[in-house]
Protein backbone atom coordinates (compact mmCIF):
# COMPACT_ATOMS: atom_id res chain seq x y z
CA UNK A 1 0.00 0.00 0.00
CA UNK A 2 1.49 3.36 -0.91
CA UNK A 3 1.74 6.26 1.50
CA UNK A 4 -1.17 8.28 0.11
CA UNK A 5 -3.56 5.34 0.41
CA UNK A 6 -2.28 4.66 3.90
CA UNK A 7 -2.80 8.30 4.89
CA UNK A 8 -6.39 8.23 3.60
CA UNK A 9 -7.13 5.01 5.50
CA UNK A 10 -5.66 6.49 8.70
CA UNK A 11 -7.66 9.73 8.39
CA UNK A 12 -10.92 7.90 7.70
CA UNK A 13 -10.19 5.39 10.45
CA UNK A 14 -9.52 8.15 12.97
CA UNK A 15 -12.74 9.88 11.94
CA UNK A 16 -14.78 6.69 12.34
CA UNK A 17 -13.25 5.98 15.74
CA UNK A 18 -13.96 9.58 16.79
CA UNK A 19 -17.61 9.09 15.80
CA UNK A 20 -17.79 5.84 17.72
CA UNK A 21 -16.37 7.72 20.73
CA UNK A 22 -19.05 10.40 20.36
CA UNK A 23 -21.76 7.69 20.37
CA UNK A 24 -20.25 6.10 23.47
CA UNK A 25 -20.21 9.51 25.19
CA UNK A 26 -23.86 10.08 24.24
CA UNK A 27 -24.85 6.70 25.66
CA UNK A 28 -22.84 6.92 28.90
CA UNK A 29 -22.46 10.59 29.69
CA UNK A 30 -19.54 10.75 32.15
CA UNK A 31 -16.25 12.73 32.32
CA UNK A 32 -14.37 9.47 31.78
CA UNK A 33 -16.18 8.91 28.48
CA UNK A 34 -14.87 12.21 27.03
CA UNK A 35 -14.63 11.49 23.28
CA UNK A 36 -10.94 12.42 23.06
CA UNK A 37 -10.08 9.98 25.86
CA UNK A 38 -12.06 7.07 24.37
CA UNK A 39 -10.84 7.70 20.81
CA UNK A 40 -7.21 8.02 21.93
CA UNK A 41 -7.45 4.83 23.96
CA UNK A 42 -8.98 2.85 21.06
CA UNK A 43 -6.31 4.06 18.62
CA UNK A 44 -3.45 3.34 21.03
CA UNK A 45 -4.80 -0.17 21.63
CA UNK A 46 -5.01 -0.78 17.84
CA UNK A 47 -1.47 0.51 17.30
CA UNK A 48 -0.07 -1.62 20.13
CA UNK A 49 -1.91 -4.82 19.10
CA UNK A 50 -0.84 -4.58 15.44
CA UNK A 51 2.66 -3.28 16.24
CA UNK A 52 2.11 -0.13 14.20
CA UNK A 53 4.67 2.58 15.09
CA UNK A 54 3.37 6.05 15.94
CA UNK A 55 5.42 7.38 13.01
CA UNK A 56 3.38 5.27 10.59
CA UNK A 57 0.11 6.46 12.14
CA UNK A 58 1.28 10.06 11.74
CA UNK A 59 1.54 9.62 7.95
CA UNK A 60 -2.20 10.24 8.11
CA UNK A 61 -2.29 12.00 11.47
CA UNK A 62 -0.15 14.90 10.30
CA UNK A 63 -2.94 15.97 7.90
CA UNK A 64 -5.39 16.18 10.78
CA UNK A 65 -2.76 18.13 12.76
CA UNK A 66 -2.65 20.60 9.92
CA UNK A 67 -6.09 21.88 11.00
CA UNK A 68 -5.13 22.60 14.63
CA UNK A 69 -4.13 26.17 13.74
CA UNK A 70 -7.41 27.08 12.04
CA UNK A 71 -9.21 25.28 14.89
CA UNK A 72 -7.75 27.80 17.36
CA UNK A 73 -8.69 30.67 15.04
CA UNK A 74 -12.26 29.28 14.93
CA UNK A 75 -12.61 29.82 18.71
CA UNK A 76 -13.18 33.51 17.91
CA UNK A 77 -16.63 32.48 16.68
CA UNK A 78 -18.12 31.33 20.04
CA UNK A 79 -16.53 34.39 21.65
CA UNK A 80 -18.26 36.56 19.04
CA UNK A 81 -21.59 34.80 19.62
CA UNK A 82 -21.42 35.68 23.33
CA UNK A 83 -20.09 39.20 22.76
CA UNK A 84 -23.04 40.88 24.52
CA UNK A 85 -22.56 38.83 27.68
CA UNK A 86 -18.83 39.52 27.46
CA UNK A 87 -19.48 43.27 27.13
CA UNK A 88 -21.77 43.55 30.16
CA UNK A 89 -19.52 41.41 32.38
CA UNK A 90 -16.07 42.29 31.03
CA UNK A 91 -14.50 43.21 34.39
CA UNK A 92 -15.45 40.16 36.48
CA UNK A 93 -14.74 37.72 33.62
CA UNK A 94 -11.41 39.24 32.62
CA UNK A 95 -10.05 39.76 36.14
CA UNK A 96 -11.29 36.35 37.34
CA UNK A 97 -9.84 34.40 34.40
CA UNK A 98 -6.53 36.28 34.52
CA UNK A 99 -6.20 35.61 38.24
CA UNK A 100 -6.95 31.93 37.62
CA UNK A 101 -4.46 31.81 34.75
CA UNK A 102 -1.64 33.24 36.88
CA UNK A 103 -2.49 30.81 39.71
CA UNK A 104 -2.63 27.84 37.34
CA UNK A 105 0.65 28.57 35.59
CA UNK A 106 2.59 29.32 38.77
CA UNK A 107 1.24 26.48 40.93
CA UNK A 108 1.72 23.94 38.12
CA UNK A 109 5.23 25.14 37.34
CA UNK A 110 6.42 25.50 40.93
CA UNK A 111 5.00 22.17 42.13
CA UNK A 112 6.56 20.30 39.19
CA UNK A 113 9.87 22.10 39.67
CA UNK A 114 9.79 21.38 43.40
CA UNK A 115 9.12 17.68 42.67
CA UNK A 116 12.27 17.67 40.55
CA UNK A 117 10.91 17.14 37.03
CA UNK A 118 12.98 18.27 34.06
CA UNK A 119 12.18 21.44 32.15
CA UNK A 120 10.61 19.80 29.08
CA UNK A 121 8.04 18.09 31.32
CA UNK A 122 7.43 21.32 33.26
CA UNK A 123 6.88 23.24 30.01
CA UNK A 124 4.40 20.61 28.86
CA UNK A 125 2.48 20.88 32.13
CA UNK A 126 2.38 24.67 32.53
CA UNK A 127 -0.48 25.48 30.08
CA UNK A 128 -2.68 22.50 31.16
CA UNK A 129 -5.77 24.59 32.01
CA UNK A 130 -6.48 25.77 28.48
CA UNK A 131 -8.06 24.03 25.52
CA UNK A 132 -5.77 21.40 23.93
CA UNK A 133 -4.83 23.08 20.62
CA UNK A 134 -3.81 26.27 22.43
CA UNK A 135 -1.97 24.37 25.18
CA UNK A 136 -0.04 22.48 22.51
CA UNK A 137 0.87 25.70 20.72
CA UNK A 138 2.08 27.27 23.99
CA UNK A 139 4.06 24.12 24.84
CA UNK A 140 5.66 24.20 21.41
CA UNK A 141 6.73 27.83 21.91
CA UNK A 142 8.25 26.97 25.31
CA UNK A 143 10.01 23.85 24.03
CA UNK A 144 7.97 21.14 25.78
CA UNK A 145 6.40 17.94 24.43
CA UNK A 146 3.05 18.52 22.71
CA UNK A 147 1.69 15.00 23.27
CA UNK A 148 2.37 15.30 26.99
CA UNK A 149 0.69 18.67 27.20
CA UNK A 150 -2.40 17.14 25.58
CA UNK A 151 -2.50 14.51 28.33
CA UNK A 152 -2.12 17.10 31.11
CA UNK A 153 -4.95 19.10 29.55
CA UNK A 154 -7.09 15.97 29.59
CA UNK A 155 -6.31 15.35 33.27
CA UNK A 156 -7.19 18.98 34.13
CA UNK A 157 -10.46 18.66 32.20
CA UNK A 158 -11.64 15.30 33.51
CA UNK A 159 -10.25 15.89 37.01
CA UNK A 160 -11.85 19.33 37.19
CA UNK A 161 -15.27 17.96 36.28
CA UNK A 162 -14.96 15.12 38.80
CA UNK A 163 -13.93 17.54 41.58
CA UNK A 164 -16.07 20.57 40.70
CA UNK A 165 -19.02 19.86 43.00
CA UNK A 166 -16.72 19.71 46.05
CA UNK A 167 -14.47 22.60 45.01
CA UNK A 168 -17.34 24.96 44.22
CA UNK A 169 -19.14 24.05 47.45
CA UNK A 170 -16.00 24.32 49.61
CA UNK A 171 -15.22 27.81 48.34
CA UNK A 172 -18.89 28.85 48.30
CA UNK A 173 -18.93 29.59 44.59
CA UNK A 174 -22.65 29.52 43.84
CA UNK A 175 -23.18 32.45 41.48
CA UNK A 176 -23.56 31.34 37.84
CA UNK A 177 -20.76 33.71 36.87
CA UNK A 178 -18.27 32.40 39.42
CA UNK A 179 -19.15 28.81 38.52
CA UNK A 180 -18.87 29.42 34.77
CA UNK A 181 -15.57 31.29 35.06
CA UNK A 182 -14.17 28.60 37.37
CA UNK A 183 -15.17 25.72 35.11
CA UNK A 184 -14.05 27.33 31.85
CA UNK A 185 -10.75 28.59 33.29
CA UNK A 186 -9.78 25.31 34.97
CA UNK A 187 -11.28 22.62 32.75
CA UNK A 188 -11.70 24.16 29.25
CA UNK A 189 -14.16 22.40 26.91
CA UNK A 190 -14.85 19.45 29.23
CA UNK A 191 -15.71 21.87 32.04
CA UNK A 192 -17.80 23.99 29.68
CA UNK A 193 -19.84 20.94 28.67
CA UNK A 194 -20.63 20.35 32.35
CA UNK A 195 -21.54 24.03 32.84
CA UNK A 196 -23.95 23.83 29.88
CA UNK A 197 -25.79 21.08 31.76
CA UNK A 198 -26.40 23.29 34.81
CA UNK A 199 -27.65 26.30 32.84
CA UNK A 200 -27.40 28.00 29.47
CA UNK A 201 -26.10 31.16 31.11
CA UNK A 202 -23.38 29.35 33.06
CA UNK A 203 -22.45 27.52 29.85
CA UNK A 204 -22.09 30.81 27.97
CA UNK A 205 -19.88 32.27 30.72
CA UNK A 206 -17.81 29.09 30.77
CA UNK A 207 -17.33 29.26 26.98
CA UNK A 208 -16.17 32.88 27.26
CA UNK A 209 -13.84 32.01 30.16
CA UNK A 210 -12.37 29.10 28.21
CA UNK A 211 -11.50 31.26 25.21
CA UNK A 212 -10.37 34.28 27.26
CA UNK A 213 -8.14 32.14 29.48
CA UNK A 214 -6.62 30.54 26.35
CA UNK A 215 -5.65 34.04 25.20
CA UNK A 216 -4.43 35.17 28.63
CA UNK A 217 -2.38 32.01 29.20
CA UNK A 218 -0.69 32.18 25.82
CA UNK A 219 0.19 35.83 26.38
CA UNK A 220 1.52 35.62 29.96
CA UNK A 221 3.06 32.13 30.09
CA UNK A 222 6.41 32.92 28.40
CA UNK A 223 7.02 35.86 30.78
CA UNK A 224 5.89 34.00 33.91
CA UNK A 225 8.06 31.02 32.99
CA UNK A 226 11.04 33.32 32.63
CA UNK A 227 10.45 34.70 36.14
CA UNK A 228 9.69 31.39 37.87
CA UNK A 229 12.17 28.98 36.26
Amino acid at each position, binding site marked *: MNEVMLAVVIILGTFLIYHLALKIHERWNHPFT*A*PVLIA*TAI*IIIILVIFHIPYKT*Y*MLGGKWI*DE*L*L*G*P*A*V*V*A*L*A*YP*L*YQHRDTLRTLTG*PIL*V*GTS*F*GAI*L*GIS*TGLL*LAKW*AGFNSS*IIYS*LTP*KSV*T*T*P*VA*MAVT*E*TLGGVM*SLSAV*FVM*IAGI*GGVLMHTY*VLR*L*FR*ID*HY*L*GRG*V*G*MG*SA*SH*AIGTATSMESSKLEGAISTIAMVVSA*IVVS*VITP*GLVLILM
Partner: protein
Amino acid sequence: MVKLGKIAVHICLLYLIFLLGNWIEHTLGLFIPGSVIGMLILFLLLITNIIQVSWIAEGANFIVKNLAFFFIPVTVGVLNYYQLFSGKGFLLIIIVLISTIFVMAGSGIVSQWLVRRKEYKHE
Protein backbone atom coordinates in the same frame (compact mmCIF):
# COMPACT_ATOMS: atom_id res chain seq x y z
CA MET B 1 -23.20 18.90 -0.66
CA VAL B 2 -23.67 22.69 -0.66
CA LYS B 3 -23.18 22.71 3.09
CA LEU B 4 -19.99 20.65 2.79
CA GLY B 5 -18.62 23.08 0.20
CA LYS B 6 -19.48 26.00 2.48
CA ILE B 7 -17.66 24.37 5.39
CA ALA B 8 -14.59 23.79 3.19
CA VAL B 9 -14.51 27.41 1.99
CA HIS B 10 -14.98 28.71 5.55
CA ILE B 11 -12.14 26.54 6.81
CA CYS B 12 -9.92 27.87 4.00
CA LEU B 13 -10.62 31.41 5.21
CA LEU B 14 -9.81 30.37 8.80
CA TYR B 15 -6.61 28.82 7.49
CA LEU B 16 -5.62 32.08 5.77
CA ILE B 17 -6.16 33.99 9.02
CA PHE B 18 -4.04 31.37 10.78
CA LEU B 19 -1.23 31.94 8.24
CA LEU B 20 -1.54 35.70 8.78
CA GLY B 21 -1.24 35.15 12.55
CA ASN B 22 1.84 32.97 12.00
CA TRP B 23 3.37 35.62 9.78
CA ILE B 24 2.79 38.30 12.42
CA GLU B 25 4.27 36.03 15.11
CA HIS B 26 7.46 35.47 13.13
CA THR B 27 7.85 38.97 11.73
CA LEU B 28 7.46 40.62 15.11
CA GLY B 29 9.28 37.80 16.94
CA LEU B 30 6.40 37.37 19.40
CA PHE B 31 6.06 34.54 21.90
CA ILE B 32 2.29 34.33 21.42
CA PRO B 33 1.35 31.41 19.13
CA GLY B 34 0.33 32.50 15.61
CA SER B 35 -2.97 30.64 15.94
CA VAL B 36 -3.94 32.71 18.99
CA ILE B 37 -2.98 35.92 17.17
CA GLY B 38 -5.20 34.70 14.33
CA MET B 39 -8.06 34.16 16.77
CA LEU B 40 -7.74 37.72 18.08
CA ILE B 41 -7.62 39.08 14.52
CA LEU B 42 -10.76 37.15 13.54
CA PHE B 43 -12.58 38.38 16.68
CA LEU B 44 -11.66 42.01 15.90
CA LEU B 45 -12.68 41.64 12.25
CA LEU B 46 -16.01 40.12 13.31
CA ILE B 47 -16.96 42.80 15.85
CA THR B 48 -15.97 45.56 13.43
CA ASN B 49 -18.06 43.84 10.71
CA ILE B 50 -15.11 43.76 8.31
CA ILE B 51 -15.64 40.00 8.09
CA GLN B 52 -19.30 38.99 7.94
CA VAL B 53 -20.08 36.22 10.39
CA SER B 54 -21.74 34.28 7.54
CA TRP B 55 -18.33 33.94 5.85
CA ILE B 56 -16.99 31.69 8.59
CA ALA B 57 -20.01 30.51 10.63
CA GLU B 58 -20.53 26.97 9.24
CA GLY B 59 -16.82 26.16 9.09
CA ALA B 60 -16.08 27.56 12.55
CA ASN B 61 -19.09 25.80 14.01
CA PHE B 62 -18.04 22.49 12.45
CA ILE B 63 -14.50 22.80 13.84
CA VAL B 64 -15.53 23.96 17.32
CA LYS B 65 -18.16 21.19 17.59
CA ASN B 66 -15.58 18.56 16.59
CA LEU B 67 -12.57 20.19 18.24
CA ALA B 68 -11.49 16.93 19.89
CA PHE B 69 -11.09 15.19 16.51
CA PHE B 70 -8.31 17.54 15.45
CA PHE B 71 -6.02 16.84 18.37
CA ILE B 72 -6.50 13.06 18.58
CA PRO B 73 -3.30 12.32 16.55
CA VAL B 74 -1.16 14.38 18.94
CA THR B 75 -2.83 12.85 21.98
CA VAL B 76 -2.15 9.36 20.61
CA GLY B 77 1.54 10.36 20.69
CA VAL B 78 1.49 9.86 24.46
CA LEU B 79 2.05 6.15 23.80
CA ASN B 80 5.71 7.05 23.34
CA TYR B 81 5.77 8.38 26.91
CA TYR B 82 3.84 5.70 28.79
CA GLN B 83 6.81 4.94 31.06
CA LEU B 84 6.63 8.54 32.38
CA PHE B 85 3.37 7.92 34.22
CA SER B 86 4.63 4.92 36.12
CA GLY B 87 6.54 5.49 39.37
CA LYS B 88 7.38 9.11 40.08
CA GLY B 89 5.39 10.32 37.08
CA PHE B 90 2.24 9.60 39.06
CA LEU B 91 3.06 12.77 40.98
CA LEU B 92 2.41 14.75 37.81
CA ILE B 93 -1.26 13.73 37.90
CA ILE B 94 -1.53 14.91 41.53
CA ILE B 95 0.21 18.19 40.63
CA VAL B 96 -2.18 18.85 37.75
CA LEU B 97 -5.19 18.11 39.98
CA ILE B 98 -3.98 20.41 42.80
CA SER B 99 -3.22 23.19 40.34
CA THR B 100 -6.65 22.72 38.74
CA ILE B 101 -8.33 23.24 42.14
CA PHE B 102 -6.36 26.49 42.52
CA VAL B 103 -7.52 27.74 39.12
CA MET B 104 -11.16 26.81 39.63
CA ALA B 105 -11.35 28.26 43.14
CA GLY B 106 -9.25 31.35 42.43
CA SER B 107 -10.96 32.43 39.23
CA GLY B 108 -14.39 31.56 40.61
CA ILE B 109 -13.97 33.44 43.89
CA VAL B 110 -12.56 36.59 42.28
CA SER B 111 -15.13 36.83 39.49
CA GLN B 112 -18.02 36.07 41.86
CA TRP B 113 -16.83 38.69 44.32
CA LEU B 114 -16.57 41.30 41.55
CA VAL B 115 -19.98 40.56 40.05
CA ARG B 116 -21.72 40.58 43.46
CA ARG B 117 -20.15 43.97 44.20
CA LYS B 118 -21.39 45.21 40.83
CA GLU B 119 -24.92 43.85 41.42
CA TYR B 120 -24.96 45.40 44.91
CA LYS B 121 -24.09 48.84 43.52
CA HIS B 122 -26.89 48.61 41.00
CA GLU B 123 -29.55 47.91 43.60
